[in-house]
């Protein structure tokens, strides 16, 4: 088991390097003249050249990359062009906010959607199952800003049950934050509910067709035992795998929701950094998000290994 984790962590390294190259290429190389894109088309050429020089853009690419990578690993993430503050402090602060929002949404929705999906799978092709399948399908694909907008109109504007903003006023107790997070969390929850429930259902349906379920039933086991002892454990494997890869869409959702509700999370900062060509902040945000994604997949892999002894023993 430990060997498995070690191997996976080791495999993350080349991927991480590749990702960093990609980010570097996209952020620093692609724009061409970075100085120009920062200062805009109306600045004078000499000002651009000066900025280029200041940013060290006249050095060869691989040197720049190695320097940049080195800085990154040691925590020197530079200063934000927009805010003038240390990128590191901005990103860590924003990350905390995002994790709170995402965590809140996931903790509620992951167990719920698994149960819903398994329930639908057990009653395959019944009216209830069709209803669950179609509605979860519909909820998955609705973009978060759409559902967010509709929710705001209904719950905040019309009914006044929930606040429109996502952050409580300064000085409020920590617990208050969750009240304000409800509305932004719902689009995230809807997105994940649909996807996870569908995968749980598919997993359940596949397992129910397996020969070992027939064995379990014909052994005379009560249905309760068949489901919890045999179906669940095996149906969860494809579900958990998919949850890991779904984090990518969750992150996209986070970006949208944070923008819509003007919430100071890492997604919001990333969008603004991109719009304003704030390279250091943008690069840091993207890399942190990528690392987060890889860690989420690693956790999913570990959970799958716990569920599936074949993978666990193979190492």
């Amino acid at each position, binding site marked *: 088991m430990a060997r498995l984790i070690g191997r996976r962590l080791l495999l993350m390294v080349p991927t991480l390097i590749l990702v960093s190259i990609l980010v570097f290429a996209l952020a620093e190389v692609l724009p061409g003249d970075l100085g120009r894109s920062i200062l805009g088309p109306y600045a004078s050429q000499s000002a651009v050249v000066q900025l280029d020089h200041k940013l060290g853009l006249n050095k060869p690419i691989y040197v720049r990359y190695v320097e940049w990578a080195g800085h990154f690993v040691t925590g020197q993430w530079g200063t934000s062009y927009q805010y003038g503050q240390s990128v590191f402090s901005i990103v860590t602060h924003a990350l905390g906010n995002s994790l709170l929002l995402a965590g809140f949404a996931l903790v509620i929705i992951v167990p719920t959607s698994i149960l819903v999906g398994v329930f639908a799978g057990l009653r395959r092709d019944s009216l209830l199952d069709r209803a669950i399948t179609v509605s979860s399908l519909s909820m998955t694909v609705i973009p978060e800003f759409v559902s967010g907008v509709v929710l705001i109109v209904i719950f905040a504007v019309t009914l006044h049950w929930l606040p429109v903003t996502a952050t409580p006023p300064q000085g409020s107790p920590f617990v208050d934050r969750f009240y304000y997070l409800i509305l932004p969390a719902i689009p995230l929850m809807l997105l994940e509910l649909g996807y996870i429930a569908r995968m749980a259902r598919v997993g359940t349906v596949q397992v129910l067709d397996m020969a070992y379920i027939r064995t*379990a039933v014909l052994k005379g*086991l009560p249905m309760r035992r068949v489901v919890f002892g045999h179906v669940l454990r095996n149906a969860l494997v494809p579900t958990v795998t998919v949850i890991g890869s779904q984090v990518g869409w969750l992150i996209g959702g986070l970006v949208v929701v944070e923008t819509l509700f003007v919430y100071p999370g890492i997604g919001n900062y990333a969008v603004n950094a991109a719009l304003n060509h704030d390279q250091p902040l943008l690069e840091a945000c993207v890399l942190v998000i990528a690392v987060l994604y890889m860690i989420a997949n690693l956790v999913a892999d570990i959970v799958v290994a716990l569920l*599936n002894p074949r993978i666990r023993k193979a190492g």
Partner: protein
Amino acid sequence: MSVVEPQGGSQAQVGTVEPAAALDVRDLEVTFHRRGRDLPVLKGVTLRIEPGEAYGLVGESGCGKTTLAMAALRYLAGNGTVDAGKVLVEGRDVSTLSKEALRKWRGEAVAMVYQDPAAALSPAMRIGDQVAEVFRYHEGLPKAEALKRAREGLRRVALPDPDATMRRYPFELSGGQQQRVVIAMALAVNPHLLVLDEPTTGLDATVEAEILDLIEELRGRIHASILLITHNLGLVARLCERVGVLYAGRLVEEGPAREIFTDPRHPYTMGLLRCVPKFGMNKTDAALQTIPGTLPALGEPLEGCVYSARCPMAKPVCTRREPDLYGWPGDGGPTGRAEAEAMPADPAAYSPHHASPVGESARHARCYFSAEVAEMPHMTPVLATSLEARGATAGDVLQIGDLSRTFKDGRKKLTAVSDVSLNLRRGETFGLVGESGSGKTTLAKCVTGLIAPDSGTVTFEGNQLRATAGRRSQDALRAIQMVFQNPDSTLNPAWSTRAILTRAVRKLGSGGSVRAKVDKLSADVRVEPRFLAQKPTDLSGGQKQRIAIARAFAGDPTLVVCDEPASALDVSVQASILNLLVELQTNEQVSYVFISHDLAVVRYISDRIGVMYLAELIEVGSAEEVFNPPHHPYTEALLSSIPKLQFEDEQQRIPLRGTMPSLSEPPSGCRFHTRCHRFLGDICVEQEPPLQEPAHGHTYKCHIPPQELLAAQATTEAVTPTGG
């Protein structure tokens, strides 16, 4: 004794307790509904299994035998319905059980053992927990107690080291061990009826024999009745007292096993017995009888007797009205013949004066003309010519020298083929036998070039071949072709059959009209032209395999490697494929490397045979030499493990100790020493055995010299009869 139910309308009286049949199926009709069509699978099947009896239900695919078992356990798939009839287990009507009663009843009254033990076990649960479950939920035992009983159960099925096995997961056990676990679970709470559905299909021959030994031994101790469902007649002969033959959802013959197999009275049973190669039979002795036509498709409406379309004895009355199950020999009730003669032209006007089955005899056959079955006309397919006539003395066509190949599995190195050498002459068939893991398929792939060997040479017609097919000349490719095992994936489902053959002719052929060649190929393999326009999915298994053979012959090959070409086909179709291969060999003078796990088939079709064990070729010789003493102890054990149909010679079974060693850690010295029943001692562990040569061309690897071996084996083995 369980509840007594009044049977057949008779009154149950106090004091007269009639034991209820273990299984009582009455006029069962089951239909499946698929895509809006109704497909009747079982059409009125009636059978009875008495307590303590073993009953074999035989039939080929689609005959409905598994459906019967599922109906008995009330576990039909969602789209299957019981339209008529009843199933009573120990006198209780299965359909009247409440859900809770059904649950308890499953496991306690009826238990089942399945075909694919790996799939039947829950992959993420430890063995011990799975077996203990039965005790926990049937006898309400607490976990610790249940685990103890589970351990006992595993001991009962002769699993070595039950404690360690309890902690393992199914994928860590071998096929034989997995099946033992399934049997242990089935027998856990002492069921009264044990249903075995193809319990040994897919297991190696020696493992199969062990499982059968186990079942026989357990029978003596458990007093359960047994329903054995299989297509393998030998199994039934070994294990069962009575047998029922199922064809197209109808019971066509029933009675004591010994009588039915020695004196069948239904044309289908006779056909089945004839098309299986008798042990010791070779293609130069006699051709295999086949059953012409194909199995009826599921749901196909059949007029009159379900077998009439394929029956060589069919008369007009057979298609007018279906015969009843008549007793055999006559028992005072109407005989089939009498009914046939009394039949008016319009069968609807005829009303029988009896219920089915007719009479009280122990045997029944659903045929009007049972009396004539013994003289059923033989077919006369082409007989194989002798080796000389096939040009087989004209020198070697293939030489394999010291071929080796290893695979990496994670960090383990598996030796699949280890220093194998053999020669093949023109027009000759070399049969390659071995169990799973022996390396025969890997060897075949090295010969054809699908896999490159690590070392060693393959020489064809004097020229050394390049390792992989991609680097061989077109000429070499044309000359060496392969026929694969699985008819469903051997032809590209997206291409039409004609396109498949046309492409093969284009790539492998040597000029001339492509279309004419394609037509000739399909004629040679007896596939009618109208099938050429269709896609493979519309063809039957036998037809697909014929096209695969035609494809291999597209370039007039010199050598065709056949990897289990008939194993995936029904018995009645197998014979026609084997006959086809023999015929093609005679006409085209092609050599075969024929791989199979079925020893009777290999004995039949091969001129020479090689036996592989754990990546080594441990014996080579003519078919006659290898199958008779003196031969390698492994060969000896292999031959003894086949369940045969002959009742006269009771050959002694030689059980092998232990299990097949892993390919990553082959035993030292002689690889077979860990399981050999003729183990000599340290010499077998320390030294590689030399090549013994009892006759010219016959070699085997063993420390025991031929004379000693002959003397030892001649006493334990009965002389196997040659010829049918």
